[in-house]
């Protein structure tokens, strides 16, 4: 869908939009948190482009998903790592693909168990616009419309590429 070069271009655009957002909001300090795995890769690419040198938070939402009673546990689980205090902080939450909004809901529920943030800004590389919950990104790389049986995912961590499958 987006080959390696197109994905790099998309990340450039996303970084630019994030930079403008940060300038406009003039946030007094913020923390960046990626949702594993794709969101973490996107967050790393953004920080590299914007020269942001701070610890990145990594969120594993396995214990907060709303489909445990349908699917059980995720196959691979690793510990969430937030190497900073989130209480009263502005948080930039990054994910690769936004579809139903359920992962973002799970991520927000998890974040609130670490404290009460001042704000959460949602950044997604791709927005599929198939929302099942009232959740919207403030910053997105591209709106993509797919056929009903189609999905996209970010392949990484090296040579990031947005790939289409069905």
């Amino acid at each position: 869908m987006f080959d390696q070069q197109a994905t790099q271009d998309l990340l450039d655009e996303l970084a630019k939009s994030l930079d403008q957002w940060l300038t406009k909001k003039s946030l007094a300090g913020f923390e960046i948190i990626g949702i594993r795995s794709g969101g973490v890769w996107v967050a790393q690419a953004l920080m590299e482009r914007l020269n942001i040198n701070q610890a990145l938070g990594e969120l594993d939402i396995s214990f907060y998903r709303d489909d445990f009673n349908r699917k059980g546990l995720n196959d691979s689980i690793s510990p969430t790592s937030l190497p900073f205090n989130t209480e009263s902080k502005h948080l930039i939450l990054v994910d690769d693909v936004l579809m139903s909004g359920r992962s973002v809901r799970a991520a927000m529920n998890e974040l609130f168990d670490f404290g009460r943030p001042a704000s959460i800004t949602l950044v997604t590389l791709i927005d599929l616009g198939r929302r099942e919950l009232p959740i919207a990104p403030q910053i997105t790389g591209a709106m993509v419309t797919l056929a009903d049986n189609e999905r996209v995912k970010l392949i990484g961590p090296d040579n990031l590429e947005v790939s289409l499958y069905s």
Partner: protein
Amino acid sequence: MSQSTQLTDTGQLKHFLSIDGLSKALLTEILDTAESFIEVGERKIRKVPLLRGKTVVNLFFEASTRTRSTFELAAKRLSADVLNLNISTSATSKGESLSDTLLNLEAMASDMFIVRHSQSGAPHFIAESVTPGVGIINAGDGWHAHPTQAMLDMLTIRQNKGTFDGLRVAIIGDIMHSRVARSQIQALNTLGASEVRIIAPSTLLPPEVESLGVNVYHQLHSGLNDIDVVIMLRLQRERMQGALLPSEQEYFQQYGLTQEALANAKPDAIVMHPGPINRGVEIESAVADGTQSVILDQVTNGIAVRMAVMSMAMSGQTQERNALTQGA
């Protein structure tokens, strides 16, 4: 034991009854999942919504403080509702049969039973007779198995040593009556430890002990040579009556872990004990409270490991139920 009892058709855990027959991959998955729950235990809010709306029953037919309370905390940190039943002082003493007790608990829409029983095989029996969809976790049965204790020990070893490759582990004390030792030996051999030694007087060894995959030593000092991990077992005082040992003092002289004895192990060896410890019987206070002791880490890890097996078994039950619904 038939693995179909504890595993789903796709090899996921649905009950946790014994280490026996479980693969290295599955044991590693338990340890990895537990690592994530350790992180949860360090948060401001030490609780995740995974088992919200589920009911977990602590079904203890035998007294326990540490195991029961860590299972209770584990279930609560998974947001489950917990019912503690001390059966030895409950309905069975009024004449109710085990089957009737279980039927009543199932009627309360329980999703998981944590079972401790003095009879070997009791949790296995319950797992085979319980309604489909209810998970059983063995919290210690007779002399047979105590798999969550073994896994929290494995987690403690992995945290301190990084890997099981090349490790030499000594288990010291009353092996014969120890369900903990049996489960530890199976777990260590499955996870690939180089050597499992047991150090004990011959009166406290089970028959054909070598068939468990261990090397047997009768002398503490020589047995500790080159050892990375020292696991002490509690000397169960009630066993003293069977004349298996001359006296507690004599036992301590020969098998008690003192700093002097520990000096025979590797300098960075860790010391573990499943608790409760008998100071001055199997372990000297200076060792139990010393820098090489990780005994209290074991207790902390116990909560995370129990969260891991409870959520994995509940996950297996869910997947099996869904497979049945889809197949129907």
